């Protein structure tokens, strides 16, 4: 077919990332736990040693979730020289949480994100916004990182990460550049009126035709996405401190606009915001191990 002519660049593709904390020696640890977050778009593995983040790997979910889980963890294992047997407890989370072959338990990503955010942003975090590829969640939690209330987008995919991927593809700009570019405009445009992901293409083309620069179209989209997400989060109410997890947290074009609309700043973190779910899972594993140890000791 004619359409197959010409290599298509995948502008929407984000960076995969693997990291370990070289300063820590896992061999000296008492408890090693792992969390595996198998999402619809990306999969993460996090390893904690004695309840501290040790390493993580973030990659695209392949077309087989057990493999995705294995591959994600393999990244950390390889880098650290750890073996699966060294890990005492594994918790699966995310859409494919029940398909993690070596997991001892599955917990929803909602609970895990809150727990992860509590670690990454500190125990003053009360409101978490998780912006994933195809859904968006607003979560309230207490000082322990326990979920007290949550809301998810229903019925409409507007305001999810997928919309940004569509725009990246259409504008032929790598997804990581969208945020910075959205500020490189002579004046801040109004949000695009329709945030429908399916019709984003026709709307963006319309704007380009009417004389918008690419950056301005991106800005209008970032603004629309921010507005959409804020309307979700306002339904649950924003209580400080506020924290953003998920892929879009890395897009300052959306994050800064959300902060402006809410009139509050999102707590900063030195960690990769995409790992919150897997990190929370690993931390839950640590707590469970501690309690088991304690109950064994008591027995």
């Amino acid at each position, binding site marked *: *077919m*004619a*359409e*197959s*002519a*010409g290599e298509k660049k995948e502008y929407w593709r984000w960076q995969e990332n693997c990291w370990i904390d070289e300063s820590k020696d896992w061999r000296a640890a008492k408890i090693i736990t792992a969390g595996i977050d*198998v999402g*619809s*778009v990306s999969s993460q593995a996090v390893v904690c040693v004695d309840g501290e983040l040790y390493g993580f790997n973030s990659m695209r*979910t392949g*077309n*087989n*979730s057990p493999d995705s889980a294995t591959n994600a963890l393999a990244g950390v294992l390889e880098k650290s020289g750890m073996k699966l047997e060294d890990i005492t407890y594994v918790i699966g989370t995310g*859409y*494919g949480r029940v*398909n993690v072959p070596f997991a001892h338990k599955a917990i929803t990503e909602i609970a895990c994100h809150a727990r992860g955010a509590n670690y990454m942003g500190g125990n003053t975090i009360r409101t978490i916004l998780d912006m994933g590829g*195809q*859904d968006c969640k607003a979560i309230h939690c207490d000082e322990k990182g326990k979920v007290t209330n949550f809301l998810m987008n229903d*019925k*409409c*995919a507007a305001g*999810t990460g*997928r919309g940004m991927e569509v725009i990246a593809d259409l504008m032929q700009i790598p997804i990581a550049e969208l945020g910075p570019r959205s500020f490189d405009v002579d004046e801040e445009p109004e949000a695009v009126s*329709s945030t*429908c*992901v*399916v*019709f984003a*293409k*026709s709307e963006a*083309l319309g704007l*380009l*035709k009417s004389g918008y620069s*690419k950056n301005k179209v991106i800005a209008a989209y970032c603004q629309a996405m921010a507005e959409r997400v804020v309307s979700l989060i306002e339904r649950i109410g924003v209580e400080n401190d506020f924290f953003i997890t998920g892929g879009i947290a890395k897009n300052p074009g959306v994050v800064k606009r959300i902060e402006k609309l809410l009139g509050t700043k999102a707590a900063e973190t030195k960690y990769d915001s995409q790992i919150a779910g897997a990190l929370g899972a690993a931390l839950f594993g640590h707590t469970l191990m501690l309690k088991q140890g304690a109950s064994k000791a008591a027995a």
Partner: protein
Amino acid sequence: MITAGIDMGSRTIKVVFLEELKVDGAPQLKWGIKGKHIMFPDELDPDLAAEKAFDDALKDAGISRDQISNVVATGAGRKQVKFATSDVTEVGAGARGAVFMCPTAKTVVDVGAEEGRGVKANAEGKVVDFAGNEKCAAGAGAFAESMSRALQLSLKDFGEASLRSDKSIPMNAQCTVFAESEVVSLIHSATPKEDIAKAVLDAVASRVCAMVRRVGIEDDVILIGGMVHNPGFVQSLKGALGVDKVHLPDMPEYISALGAAIIAAENKA
């Protein structure tokens, strides 16, 4: 006399030239296709892209610009074609081209990248009634395409794979973005690729069919647009519409450009 139709899509530009054929004693004009051309614009500047596509097409067909008596533009960017004498919507152009290719057609099913459409046309290829999908039930060719990517299959293999399946897995979501997650979960649950392919094509066909029902399904039915190349989709569409035969024109991607070229000739005649 040579006329041209140019179809300015969001990703491609198609050009068709049409030549008037002199047939002695024939009551009506006859036309022959003189050349066709497809281009993928690299730049987003539509003016330049249209110019370039048209020049390339002329070169390709060995025609000079002054031989062209009339140019009609169609497609999403039809207003951007500065050298066009007039323009026509893709609905009008598609129907005209479809009825040219299949004179008995009364129902034209047009499946584009984002939208499916049902058109009721008369014998002259004029639109009598049409319906396109509303927001939440949109998504057509592009959805099938991205799902074939998710399955790591070419669009062609994707269509063929679906023919090997006799399962019908319902897709729950109306919104295609959510439908994508469903496909992902099918993939995760290790559903065979052919069953997934069929589920996706059935879902697209069902949406399109819902639109066509608005204008009524009357024989003969013709399908236009890139999905003509997808035998799996054609099969799903037949099932959804409940018809035995769906006409599949040659050069389906060019039907709108062809329709525009015919309208250019008719306006001149």
